[in-house]
């Protein structure tokens, strides 16, 4: 399972990097199966920690996405509209979902080690 060291993680399987890019983890995409639809937030939308900002749908399931930070949506990954499978193929790169101008980070974010421990316990 791929859990990069340079990212922070939520307990709900989102990741966030230093530039405020947010996506779902390798473990999450593997568990979901083939991603076939992504509902993206609007650029300029204000987000609060723990607030639902979008939805990822696989063939069989619908999952809400929760913001790891307070902030404003700066960009969204438009390519997911046509190729949502990027989330399966490259969850940490081409499969990013949104980028946020961060105001506050959640104090509950995990580092790679902490996230790995959580996932291995599931």
């Amino acid at each position, binding site marked *: 399972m791929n859990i990069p060291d340079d990212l922070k993680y939520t307990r*709900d*399987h*989102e990741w966030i990097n230093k530039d405020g890019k947010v996506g*779902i983890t390798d473990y*999450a995409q593997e*568990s*979901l*199966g*083939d991603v*076939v*639809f992504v*509902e993206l937030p609007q650029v300029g939308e204000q987000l609060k920690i723990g607030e639902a900002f979008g*939805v*990822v*749908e*696989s*063939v*069989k*399931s*619908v*999952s*809400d*996405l*929760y913001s790891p930070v307070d902030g404003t949506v700066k960009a969204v990954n438009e390519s997911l509209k046509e190729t949502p499978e990027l989330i399966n193929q490259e969850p940490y790169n081409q499969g990013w979902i949104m980028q946020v101008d961060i105001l506050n980070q959640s104090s509950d974010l995990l580092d790679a080690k902490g996230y790995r421990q959580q996932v291995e316990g*599931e």
Partner: protein
Amino acid sequence: MKMTSGRRHIFCYKEGNRLKTTPLTPWHRQHKAKMMEFGGYDMPVEYTSIIQEHENVRNAVGMFDVSHMGEFMFQGSQTPHFLDHLVTNLPSTLQLGQAMYTPMCYPHGGTIDDLLIYRIEPDRFLMVVNAANREKDWEWITNQAKSFSHLELEDISDRTALIAVQGPLALNIIQSLTDIALNELTYYHAAFDVLVGGIKAHLSRTGYTGEDGFELYVSADKALELWEALYELGVQPAALGARDTLRLESRFPLYAHELTETISPLEAGLGMFVKFDGHEFVGRDALWAQKTNGLTRKIVGITLNGGIARPGYPLHDEENRVVGIVSSGSYSPTLKRPIALALVDLSHTKTGTPLKVMVRNRAVPATVVKTPFYRRSSS
């Protein structure tokens, strides 16, 4: 990320101590299938990818463990008469070795279950029912049988396994395992007590995928041997996720979705399986009234752009009135777009009618389309 519908089990799956298993459950787990509860059974939902498993069946071959299905055996001289009373179709007209699809209804016309009936001998029939309805069906059927003599019923579900081999290559694969001339075994016919890979089986040319294929009923203790023989021949396993997208594209109803205790077979578009002529059966009066008065709603196919319709989502018309509800919906791997079946007020069921599916309070444009969404090219 938290699942709001669908496979919740993924992040909270615990070894179910109350779930029933099939003879192949250990194999599924060894092969890293994602498991879910279905009809009270611990069943695989996908092995690696629902889309890949779906495409294997459409383009080559795949095999499904459907041992969770229930099987009831009927015997005795009153059996044909009893079955004609019990279900909406006419099992007494079956030839030996022939199979028939039929709904089974309550007196009010709602559907108890949809099922398959095989005629094995003149007075011996096999019924195959949905796993989730097995106990309910058995109770209903044994109650109905009380006023019939010369009729014996047996629930053989627990000692019967069922493997479905589906896809354009299924014929060649199964032919390599049996001496039965499969080109003479036509659609909805079966050969009983024949050898397939050296294992005694009921070999049936039926399925739930819209492809050519076979269903093999074997003794539960032989299921693993047959499954592994098929796997050795290169048949890849497919699971319930692909089974659902395959049947949805082919517009086959799924009980608890397109058919329920409040949805009649006529509303579900299954009128060809309701035989009114010269035939008294449970639910006849209610269904006849529906037919002669006209339906008020029915199941239609819809396609949509910009979201996926899921069961329970409301359908609105252009004036935002609620005119229906989604019964099944998913992404179609063959059409590469979202498709759905929905129960819609008759006024809005004409092909081409514009509708809106309410997806999380967002109105997603949809259109009523002809079904099936997919039909295989005849070979």
